[in-house]
Structure formats: structure tokens, C-alpha cells
């Protein structure tokens, strides 16, 4: 049997999705279901004087209307919504009730909920609820939060939630900056992003008609985490909760939270004894789904006369939004280890302050902390290159870890150990593919000719931390859980193989990839493998999908469990052959005795033998089923170089991406087709941050662009075709040698695009530009040279 891993096997998931047979959350109904309609605060910060529900209660089909105060009195939950990552001992974490009590803290904060037997009726009734607010001073931006003139939480004396330092060698930092020939300082703004999976969030809780148990369907990335958190928050025993993620239409971090709707639907279904459901509208998502990014980065590098960097000093102000969600405060920390990038920089000083605002809470969005870090170091590399008077590619070449040559186990200044890397080949290949010399010649020609359309070329060499995570490392960061993943591999009596995975797909093609791993390990047809996932009754143990962890942790657990099944099957084969186990070999699915190839049995035949148990070795338990909880010894560190070309119309400020090249290294690839798809999508999300997307708030905390009419998720028109290539540097953190690919595209792309934009504008004295680089910003930068955080150089 030829190898399956490494081939572009078509996805098993596709047929159902291509004919509309699969079920997303809103496709599933239960008899007697009630729809929740949320009444959301229209003010960013306000005292709730009174809520009049009488008119809503009289609407047809309305069963109940509850205010936050009523729900609190009913005692439906034991604890506020959880934050699993209190990053410091003295972190400030005001209670986050599923429905606000007394005070609304952001536009979109739920203040009351209606229950109605009809989707439209719930929306109608929600509009009839009258809330009397007294506005309070609102913290409408991160800058306002840092200034501390108004308080996001009236009972607090500061907006600051925590201070988190990672400063391994402060004297070294001082010395490096004192002795530097060049220092560059910049302020970068990571605008708020709305994750925007195409499927909005939604859920449905169904109490068992027999009483006691709750089945909770949710468009979630994290059914296992949800189960634990629902139990901890509501007091309903874990054993009575079953969480099912049906087909989930994308997540990108946006579906990994424990949101108010989850707790409301579960507790109200439990209380009323009927199914309770909710489907988010897209406009509602702006206030109800957490957002990503939201940071101000104060970044400094110190370098010698040749541009060799000796230290990075960075301070982050991070926007928590109004409340701490599941991992809100931890997101900037995930980036902290990456501010030295792919470079051999001996010293790092990182500090982060978290601040409350009266805006939608923030949390993970594709890359979570790492795109921000990559952006800061890769933008400042270009600034340093200009300062030293060398090209962007030369400044990088002078600083790569191990001179760009292959390495294993590099201890970075952050104290984290990079598993493996080999940075120069990706760098060289990307520049070759983008045709750097021709582009520079054309760029010079257009500059000399003073043409209206100017070229910009940008590159970004990134490294990222994925495969979250070694449990001990998470413990060290005060995260409230581990980072292992669980897998079971079982041979069924018919010879088919059932894989149970704790990873939870929402578009990544896990069923295909896991089948491929089993096919290669066990020598079986991938179509003989069935993958069970995303249902805590079928897959009781798991830690779900985020942080590019599915393959590097969950896939590895599957491979290890398969090895254990093969090991046991080998004993049965040896017994049947009346041979010593050490004389039995396993190849392409078949066991045979060395030297007697005529005696052979396929592992799938042994499935029945193990099930029937008529003739097993003495003392052996029946059945072929093994499980593994894999806790990775280290993170995995994918890397690569992206290069991009923009054409800027200096008369209109319009930007067109005319080429995008990415050379990525995620170690061994299980299915290169899926890797390519992950990179394409990831790259476009980074491009979108660079050029299009931003959740824009006014100073009173109102969002100006809550719908897809004005929040600019790019269409096919705005993005180019991409050229991809790969290098392969196996990870040393797991036996498959794999690294993640889900977030790499996003981590590499925003900086590449902005480096290109700034390169195009450098003749106009523009040193930096805030994201998104809209035509207006670009035009103003060309013509007034002032619209960016670092000013111009004119």
C-alpha cells in the first residue's frame, strides 16, 4: 500500500457539505423549542434604572421575559461567566453576569431576555422591552482607558486590570540600549477585529424529557471546555451535560468562548423544561461575539552599527473590553515570546498592561497575540533597515537565528526553546519567487518617472508558537487547564476502524487528516476509518481546537494510539502463527512471520479475532482499543517568509495587491491540499487586517460598522491569487515531526502587506502607517504626511 500521508487526498467532509446534507446549528430543531431574543444595551456604560417588560410579555407566543435582576434572584447560576486565564495573582476581574445587573458595561451587553415560540416573535418582543438608562461616563477607546479619566467599571478606581512582565535580564536590556549604535522606536496599533466566521454563533439546550440531563448543541470550537465550564458556572453536574458541536461554519477563535447565550439557554431550558435556543444575527455579533487584537504596542530595538540587534524592549497596552472572557488576558501573553521573532536577539524585555474599556470584550482571533508580535518585530525590522541603510532582506539575513542555517532546540531570550528552524531557505525562495530584482528595477523606474502608480515590496519572516500546549508551560502562565489531547483508536468487529478525537473541527478537515494518519500507520484504506468527534458523549475527553493544536497534539495522540493497537494486534498475530512476537513483522497492514511470507494476517482481520476472543493469548483482554492522552513536551514553531507586492495609486490612495508569495514550513505535512487551504485563508485574514477590517467605535463606545455593509470582510475582488511553496523542517516536539498551519498565514501576512505599503510610500517621507491602510489614510499620508502613529519624516 502506498503512503497516504503527504498526498492531496480529497476531503471526506465535502460530499455532505456540497449537497446541503450536513447540519449546522440553525438547521437543527427540537419540538417545543423557544427562541431567545436578547435585549442588548444601546449604551456603552449606563445605570439601568428600570426595565418595563409588560408590553413584550403580552406579545403572541411570548412565554417569559426576564431581566438581569430577576435572573439573579432566581439563582440559575452559581458563578459569573468564567475567565480561565487570570494571568496574575492580583488581576482585577469584575463579575461578568450572563445578563447585566444594575449597570450595562458595553453596547451589546444583555440586559434582558425574552422567550418566544417563534424566531420572528422573539425579535419583535425584544423590541418592545423598554429600558430606562442613566448614562455613565464611557471609556470608548484603549487610549481613554490608559488615561484613566473615566472608569469602565464604576466601582473600580482604575481601568488597569493587570501588569504582566517578562523581563528576564533588565540590566542586560539597559546595557544593550545604552551601548547601541542604532535604536528604533515605534508605536503600532493593532485595531480591533471582528472574527466573522461565515456561520454566526448559535446554540440550543434540550432538557431530557425523562428529566435530569441536558443536551447542549452549540456552534462551538470547544465542546469539551464548554461542558466543564457550564458545569462550573451553573452547578449542573458534568455527568448530566452532553455538549454537541454539529457542523460548525468556521471559528477563527470567535467560537471558543463561554458566552452568555450558552449559560442562558442551558439554565432556562433546565428551569422551564423545554428546549431553548438562540441564533445570532450578524449585526448582533458586533456586540455579542468577542473581538480580536485591540492593542497598542510600544516597540524598541537596539542594534550595533551593522544592524545586529542586541535587545527588544516592548510595552503593550491591551484592550480587555468590558469584561474578561475565557482567555482574554492571556491573548497578549501568547505573543510575548515572539517579539524577538526569527532572530538571534539575546535580550528581551516585555511588559503588558491589560485595561478595561466599555467596548465589546476581546479574546482570541486567529493567531491570538502572535500576529501582533510578528507585526511589531517585522515592521520595526524594516525601520531598522532604513536606519542602518541596508535592504529589508539584508537586515533579516544579518539577524536570523544560527545565521539562517538549520538548528534544533534554540533557547530564545524569552527562555522558550524553539524546537527546530531553518530560516534562510524560505527567505531565499520567497525572494526568488517574487522576483525581487526585477521588481526593484521596475520600482526605481516608476519612481524616476514620477508615475502615479507606485510599487511597494514587503517581506515578513515569521515564527509562531503552536501546538498549544505543554501542560506545565500553561501552568507556569497561570492558565486554568492543561494542553494535552486525547485519542482513542478502536478496531470494530467488521474490521473498520473507529477513531475518537478530542479535537473539534470547524472546517479544517480533521476527518480526512485523521483517516490518513490511521491509513498510513495501520495499512488500511482511509475510507475504512470513521472519525468520531465534537460530541462529549462519544468523545468524553478532549481539549478542542485553537492555537493550531489539532494536528501537533491531537493528530499525534491518534498516531500514538494506533501504535498501541498495532502492538497488541501483533501479540494476537504471533499467537495465531505460534511464533514469538519478536519474529512477527508488520508491513502495509499485514502481520507475517519473518522468512515465512505465506503466513500472513491483516490487522483488520484481527479486529474480529479480538472481538470474538475465542483464541487470544492467555490473559489478554478482548478487543483492540487503545487510548492516549498526549501532552506535548514542547510547543511547535512553524515559520516562513512571505513577500508581497502592492501597487498604490498615489492620486486616489487606492492599494492593489498584485502578487503574494508565501514559503512556509510546518514540518511534515499530512495533506498538502489542506495545508495550502489553511494558508490561503490565513493569509487573507492578515491582508484584511492590513488593508480593510477594523471595528470602529466612537468616543462614546458605539460601534459605527456592525454589519457586513460596513465591516469590510474582503471579497474575491479585493485579494489576489497566491503563490505558495514550502520547506520541511520536522518538529522535534512530537513523533510525527509536524507543526501547525492554521494560524501561520495570518501571522505572516499583515506585516508583509504593511511593509510593502510603507515601501511604496517611502519616497513621500512616510515611515509608518496605521492599519487598516485605507485609501483615505494613504492619500492623506502622501499629501499631508501626518496620519500615522509615528508621524512622517518629511
Amino acid at each position, binding site marked *: 500500500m502506498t503512503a497516504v500521508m503527504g498526498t*492531496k487526498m*480529497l*476531503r471526506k*467532509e*465535502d*460530499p455532505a*457539505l*456540497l*449537497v*446541503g*446534507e*450536513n*447540519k*449546522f446549528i*440553525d*438547521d437543527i430543531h427540537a419540538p417545543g423549542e423557544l427562541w431567545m431574543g436578547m435585549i442588548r444595551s444601546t449604551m456603552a456604560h449606563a445605570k439601568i434604572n428600570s426595565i418595563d417588560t409588560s408590553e413584550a410579555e403580552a406579545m403572541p407566543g411570548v412565554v417569559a421575559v426576564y431581566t438581569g435582576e430577576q435572573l439573579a434572584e432566581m439563582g440559575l447560576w452559581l458563578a459569573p461567566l468564567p475567565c480561565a486565564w487570570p494571568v496574575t495573582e492580583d488581576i482585577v476581574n469584575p463579575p461578568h453576569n450572563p445578563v447585566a445587573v444594575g449597570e450595562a458595561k458595553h453596547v451589546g451587553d444583555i440586559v434582558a431576555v425574552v422567550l418566544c415560540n417563534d*424566531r*420572528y416573535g422573539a425579535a419583535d418582543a425584544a423590541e418592545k422591552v423598554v429600558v430606562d438608562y442613566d448614562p455613565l461616563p464611557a471609556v470608548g477607546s484603549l487610549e481613554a482607558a490608559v488615561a484613566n479619566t473615566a472608569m469602565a467599571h464604576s466601582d473600580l478606581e482604575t481601568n488597569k486590570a493587570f501588569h504582566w512582565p517578562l523581563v528576564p535580564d533588565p540590566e542586560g536590556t539597559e546595557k544593550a540600549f545604552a551601548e547601541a549604535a542604532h535604536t528604533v522606536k515605534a508605536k503600532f496599533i493593532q485595531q480591533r477585529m471582528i472574527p*466573522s*466566521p*461565515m*456561520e*454566526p454563533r448559535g446554540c440550543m439546550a434540550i432538557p431530557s424529557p425523562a428529566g435530569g440531563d441536558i443536551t447542549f448543541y452549540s456552534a462551538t470550537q470547544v465542546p469539551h471546555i464548554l461542558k466543564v465550564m457550564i458545569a462550573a458556572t451553573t452547578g449542573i453536574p458534568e455527568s448530566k451535560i452532553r455538549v454537541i458541536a454539529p*457542523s*460548525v*461554519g*468556521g471559528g*477563527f477563535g470567535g467560537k471558543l468562548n463561554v458566552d452568555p447565550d450558552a449559560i442562558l439557554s442551558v439554565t432556562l431550558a433546565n428551569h422551564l423544561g423545554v428546549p431553548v435556543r438562540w441564533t445570532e*444575527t*450578524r*449585526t448582533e455579533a458586533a456586540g455579542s461575539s468577542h473581538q480580536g487584537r485591540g492593542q497598542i504596542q510600544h516597540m524598541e530595538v537596539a542594534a550595533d552599527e551593522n544592524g545586529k540587534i542586541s535587545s527588544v524592549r516592548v510595552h503593550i497596552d491591551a484592550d480587555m473590553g468590558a469584561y474578561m472572557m475565557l482567555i482574554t488576558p492571556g491573548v497578549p501573553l501568547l505573543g510575548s515570546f515572539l517579539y524577538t521573532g526569527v532572530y538571534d536577539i539575546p535580550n528581551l524585555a516585555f511588559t503588558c498592561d491589560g485595561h478595561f474599556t466599555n467596548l465589546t470584550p476581546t479574546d482570541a482571533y486567529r493567531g491570538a497575540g502572535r500576529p501582533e508580535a510578528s507585526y511589531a518585530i517585522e515592521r520595526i525590522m524594516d525601520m531598522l533597515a532604513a536606519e542602518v541603510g541596508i535592504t529589508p532582506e539584508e537586515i533579516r539575513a544579518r539577524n536570523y537565528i544560527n545565521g539562517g542555517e538549520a538548528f534544533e532546540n534554540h533557547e530564545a531570550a524569552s527562555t522558550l526553546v524553539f524546537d527546530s528552524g531553518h530560516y534562510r531557505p524560505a527567505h531565499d525562495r520567497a525572494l526568488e519567487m517574487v522576483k525581487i530584482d526585477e521588481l526593484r528595477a521596475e520600482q526605481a523606474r516608476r519612481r524616476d518617472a514620477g508615475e502615479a502608480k507606485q510599487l511597494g515590496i514587503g517581506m515578513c519572516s515569521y515564527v509562531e508558537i503552536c501546538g498549544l500546549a505543554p501542560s506545565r508551560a500553561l501552568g507556569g502562565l497561570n492558565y486554568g487547564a492543561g494542553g494535552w489531547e486525547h485519542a482513542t483508536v478502536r478496531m470494530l468487529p467488521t474490521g473498520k476502524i473507529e477513531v475518537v478525537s478530542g479535537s473539534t473541527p*470547524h*472546517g*479544517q*478537515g480533521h476527518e480526512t487528516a485523521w483517516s490518513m494518519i490511521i491509513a498510513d500507520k495501520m495499512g488500511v484504506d482511509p475510507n475504512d476509518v470513521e472519525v468520531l468527534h465534537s460530541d462529549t458523549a462519544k468523545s468524553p475527553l478532549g481539549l478542542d481546537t485553537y492555537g493550531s493544536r489539532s494536528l501537533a497534539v491531537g493528530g499525534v495522540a491518534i498516531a500514538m494510539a494506533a501504535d498501541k493497537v498495532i502492538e497488541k494486534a501483533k501479540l494476537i498475530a504471533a499467537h495465531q502463527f505460534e511464533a514469538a512476537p519478536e519474529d512477527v513483522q508488520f508491513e502495509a497492514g499485514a502481520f507475517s512471520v519473518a522468512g515465512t511470507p505465506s503466513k500472513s494476517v491483516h490487522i483488520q482481520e484481527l479486529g474480529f479475532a479480538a472481538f470474538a476472543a475465542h483464541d487470544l493469548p492467555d490473559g489478554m483482554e478482548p478487543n483492540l482499543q487503545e487510548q492516549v492522552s498526549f501532552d506535548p513536551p514542547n510547543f511547535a514553531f512553524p515559520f516562513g517568509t512571505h513577500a508581497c507586492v502592492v501597487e498604490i495609486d498615489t492620486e486616489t490612495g487606492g492599494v492593489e495587491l498584485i502578487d503574494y508569495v508565501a514559503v512556509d514550513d510546518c514540518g511534515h505535512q499530512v495533506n498538502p*491540499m*489542506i495545508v*495550502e*487551504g489553511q494558508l*490561503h*485563508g*490565513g*493569509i*487573507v*485574514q492578515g491582508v484584511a487586517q492590513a488593508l480593510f477590517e477594523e471595528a470602529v467605535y466612537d468616543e462614546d463606545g458605539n460601534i459605527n460598522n456592525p*454589519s*457586513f*455593509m460596513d465591516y469590510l*470582510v474582503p*471579497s*474575491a*475582488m479585493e*485579494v489576489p*491569487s*497566491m503563490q505558495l511553496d514550502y520547506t520541511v523542517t520536522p518538529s522535534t516536539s512530537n513523533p510525527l515531526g509536524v507543526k501547525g498551519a492554521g494560524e501561520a*498565514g495570518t501571522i505572516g501576512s499583515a506585516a508583509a502587506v504593511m511593509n510593502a505599503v510603507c515601501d511604496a510610500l517611502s519616497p513621500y517621507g512616510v515611515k509608518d502607517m496605521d492599519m487598516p491602510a485605507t485609501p483615505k489614510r494613504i492619500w492623506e499620508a502622501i499629501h499631508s504626511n501626518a496620519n500615522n502613529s509615528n508621524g512622517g519624516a518629511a
Partner: protein
Amino acid sequence: MEVSITVNGSTHSSDVEPRTLLVHHLRDNIGLTGTNIGCDSSSCGACTIHMNGESVKSCTVLAVQADGQELTTIEGLAAVAESDGTATGDQNWHPMQEAFQNCHALQCGYCTPGMVMASTSFLKENPNPTEEQIREGLEGNLCRCTGYHNIVKAVQSVAGGAS
């Protein structure tokens, strides 16, 4: 109000509220949940279906406006291809469905029904488009997973095959 709509060859008569959106009627009343809803501003195209052979966003049509019309949703697309003799592959799908799988033009699959319906209708209007024209033609359909690269390739492959 009484409406009678032919969807994928079957006629469904029902009493609907006048304000009912066609997409909700298809999904909640007729039970055809393959057509998805991704926004509330007619921006994302996840709900694209064919009405009398042309693509429409079914969130922007009232059920009552579809009275007496012939609709095709993703569930019925393969049958349309079969009846006009263009069905392909082991699955007997519309060539666009096959191309989407072969080109890995879908990941989570949420935008896919709308994207496939929009793409087939686009190629009917412009059987031999350039890449630029494909990108323009699909401008009303958003995808968050694929970065569009493989969707464009899938449409190109069907266009190439047809010419």
C-alpha cells in the same frame, strides 16, 4: 398569505406571514436547510439560490414574491445537472460541485451552497471568464476560510471544461 412555490421540482403550498423571508420559508417551513444565512444586510451571499434559473439572494426576497416561481437550491442542483446531461463523477453531481471538491474550494462549507449556486449562474452568463471577471462575478459572496484562491480555481476549471 397562501404561497405556492416549486422548489427542486416539488411544489409546496403554505400559508406564510407576508413578511417571511424566502430563505426562512425554505429553511424553517419547507425544511431545505442547505441554503444558509450569514448576514442580515444582503452582503454575504450564503443564501444564494436560483429563481427561474437566475441567482438571487433568498434573504432579499419575500416568500410571497416567490409565489408561482421555480426555485433550485443546493439540494436540487445535482438533479438539474442530471436532467440536462451535464452531471459528472461518481456522485452524479453538477460539475461545479465536483470542481469545488477537487480544487479544495470549501473548508467549513457554510458559504459553499451560496458560492456554488452563484458560480453556476455566473458561468451561464459568462461561460469563458477571465480570473478578474470571476472575482468580480463572485463579489457578492463572502468566504472566510479559503481566501477565494481555490474557489476561483474551481470556477476556472468548470469554465475551461465547458469551453
